[in-house]
């Protein structure tokens, strides 16, 4: 199968290329980048040196292919979605443009009207663990927000088991790395300023709240994002009040049920050792979602934890997983890397 990638010079694009190069059923035809036209792919992605001889092409040189990945900055894909759709029967857009079903909610969170609202209903939200069947039948899939994904996986085991007291507020405090900001430098990302900082860059609101509300139906959800000394990785700490009487055993049952048939979801809750709860550090480059929990029985508060790599399960990994489902390949193809330890 021939695939092409629009906007391949960013971090998520680079991760996607790395995965696709390792995919037996896929051959990359073209990778576009307006800023790096003519350069070799490895010049933007040094880990891919001698892995591909491809060079970045201009957007207007794009040829038809079997599946088109879009990894443009937010707001770009929606302007030319029809033009892209004419080039390939299937598309996966990693940006935020087609994640929300409701144009009004898009405008509320992204502060401008959607440029192609009629297309929104045609895109399936690209999180396989939530929309496996839909994706198998889908032509178009959106990517996932990395923070939203971590927040979703922290809530889903509890929600599916009906354990959440929806009257009480849910607080999700998310710790993130610097790669979420993309590869455009700024004073904020200047090393002497960024290294070792613990920065509350979105204390109350964040766009990814909209995806969590859409995909869980829970309304009383409150996000807060703090960036820490990390490049890849997200840790979501969700504070959730459970219905009266919920016990530790109920939680184990809920998390085990959720993870049972999911190849990439692992439960991390140990009583001994130094890896007792999910930690994104060891997930760099892997498509795993580690989930765990702790119950404060005295107050009925459960702290649900989720760790993942924002560039993998939070972006490129889920995109390839969605592609596998859409094209009938085994779901875990090209996603077998287990992460490194120590790192």
């Amino acid at each position: 199968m021939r695939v092409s990638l629009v906007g391949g010079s960013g971090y998520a694009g680079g991760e996607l290329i790395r995965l696709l190069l390792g995919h037996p059923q896929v051959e990359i035809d073209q990778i576009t980048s307006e800023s790096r036209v003519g350069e070799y792919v490895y010049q933007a992605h040094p880990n891919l040196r001698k892995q591909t001889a491809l060079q970045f092409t201009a957007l207007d040189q794009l040829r038809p292919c079997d599946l088109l990945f879009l990894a443009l900055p937010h707001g770009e894909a929606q302007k030319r979605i029809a033009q892209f759709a004419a080039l390939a029967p299937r598309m996966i857009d990693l940006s935020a443009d087609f994640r929300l079903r409701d144009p009004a909610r898009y405008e509320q969170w992204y502060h401008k009207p959607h440029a192609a609202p009629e297309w929104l209903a045609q895109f399936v939200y690209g999180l396989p663990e939530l929309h496996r069947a839909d994706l198998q039948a889908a032509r178009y899939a959106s990517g996932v927000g990395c923070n939203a994904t971590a927040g979703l996986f922290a809530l889903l085991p509890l929600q599916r088991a009906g354990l959440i007291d929806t009257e009480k507020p849910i607080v999700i405090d998310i710790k993130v790395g610097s790669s979420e900001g993309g590869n455009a430098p700024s004073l904020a990302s200047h090393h002497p300023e960024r290294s070792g900082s613990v920065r509350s860059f979105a204390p109350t609101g964040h766009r990814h709240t909209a995806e969590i509300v859409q995909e869980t139906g829970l309304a009383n959800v409150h996000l807060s994002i703090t960036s820490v000394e990390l490049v890849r990785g997200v840790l979501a700490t969700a504070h959730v009040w459970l219905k009266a009487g919920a016990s530790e055993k109920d939680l184990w049952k809920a998390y085990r049920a959720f993870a049972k048939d999911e190849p990439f979801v692992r439960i991390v809750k140990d009583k001994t050792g130094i890896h007792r709860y999910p930690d994104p550090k060891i997930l760099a480059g892997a498509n795993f979602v580690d989930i765990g929990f702790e119950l404060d029985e005295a107050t009925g508060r459960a702290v649900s934890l989720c760790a993942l790599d924002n560039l993998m399960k939070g972006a490129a990994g889920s995109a390839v997983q969605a592609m596998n489902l859409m094209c009938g390949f085994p779901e875990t193809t090209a996603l077998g890397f287990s992460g490194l330890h120590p790192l």
Partner: protein
Amino acid sequence: MNANCPECDAVITMDKPLKGEIVVCPDCGAELEVTDTNPLTLALAPEEEEDWGE
């Protein structure tokens, strides 16, 4: 023979369990002690709560 982990309810199978034998739960890593073999029953083995982090 099967028994449930007292901590996390995981099903633990042992073929020839011995009384007093220590086994680690595959799911939650808790150390368990075989307190009876007919039927197989497991109890949390006492372990002091070492401060593992900051």
